[in-house]
């Protein structure tokens, strides 16, 4: 082996070792605090219950609802198609992986929007994209679709249309729309075959 290569090789191997031994700085791949604050101050992460209901009814495959409340509350009641990831479990590797699929919009919700928003902030810091928060949470959901009052007679057409949409959503989620028509007993429909006219009858 040629001696003249010893020095350069020695330097490079030494540098390599230093790089390996350097402490891993995990925080560097997270969103800096200043950027996080900028995201927090903007309100583009909020989606209204109306928009979400519309997407549930249309069976939008690119949306996944994430219930960040506890498992008990989730079992008692949740939104149709929602998945339960309690906020303290959101950073388990398998959950984080699930939340970072391409082409899916994740919408966090809780009873109000405080806990969902906290989960959102933490996930944003971790660098997750395509995450949103349901404005007002389940409380707003119920106020919108279940405790809503009919508009006044003087209301504009838009308000009335909105009320009708919301009533429709309520029916959709309570199963009010599925009216089954029962066949009346007895009464059988008899099919009478029309006799063919004989040739003698003639036409015009």
């Amino acid at each position: 082996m040629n001696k003249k290569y010893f020095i350069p090789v020695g330097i490079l191997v030494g540098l390599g070792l230093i790089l390996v031994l350097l402490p891993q700085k995990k925080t560097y791949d997270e969103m800096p605090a200043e950027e996080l604050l900028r995201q927090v101050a903007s309100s583009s992460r909020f989606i209204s219950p109306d928009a979400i209901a519309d997407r549930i009814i249309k069976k939008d495959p690119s949306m996944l609802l994430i219930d960040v409340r506890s498992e008990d509350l989730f079992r008692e009641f949740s939104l149709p198609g929602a998945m339960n990831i309690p906020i303290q479990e959101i950073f388990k590797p398998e959950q984080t992986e699930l939340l970072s699929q391409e082409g899916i919009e994740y919408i966090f919700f809780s009873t109000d929007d405080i806990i969902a928003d906290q989960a959102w902030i933490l996930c944003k810091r971790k660098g997750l994209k395509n995450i949103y928060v349901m404005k007002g949470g389940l409380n707003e959901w119920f106020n919108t679709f279940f405790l809503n009052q009919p508009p006044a007679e003087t209301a504009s057409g838009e308000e009335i249309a909105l009320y009708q949409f919301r009533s429709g959503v309520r029916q959709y989620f309570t199963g009010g729309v599925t009216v089954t028509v029962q066949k009346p007993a007895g009464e059988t429909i008899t099919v009478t075959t029309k006799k063919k006219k004989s040739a003698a009858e003639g036409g015009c």
Partner: protein
Amino acid sequence: MKELNRTDRLTIATVIFAIILVIGLITLKKPEIPYSLTVDEMAGVVISSTETITPGEVIAIVEQGNDNFLLVDVRNPVDYQKSHIRQSVNIPIHEILEKQNLKTFSDHAEGNKTVILYGQDQLQANGAWMVLKQTGFDNVRVLLGGFEYYDQTSTGMPGSATSAYMAEKPVADYKAILESLGSTTASSETKAPEPVKIIKKEKKSAAEGGC
């Protein structure tokens, strides 16, 4: 001679490479404001929710003129000008990480004083609190219900004894609502569909003929 030149060049290249690497490591961009809590630690803090203060407590603080607390309004200057809690200072949410503001917070932390954040609603101050908490400020608390609720209670509109300001409390028993709706739709008598009438067409007699 030719051999020696080659070695030199090789050494020079290696040294330059090494220098670039070292410079890169030294100037590696560090975040100006580092996080002091990991996301997992923060997720733990979030649920304990001891970092809040009730409107009643704040009303008492304002009345006493207690200077162990600093009230910070994180709304925009326009809203602050219109009305704000007495003794509060205005730091819009997007400015809370600016140097002089961070200094204010850390000065209060050193003096064992508490910073109370409030926004229009609780959600607005909550975001600011999350950021400050994660960057290491333990002396920051959030006003429950936000300015909206405080404004009503301090002027005596709804009873301040109620807990209406508590966020994350269901407004109604969802399950009960759904069951009641489900049962009403089930018990309401559905009209039996009318039997289908079949009108039999009378057959024309042969004599009737055509046109």
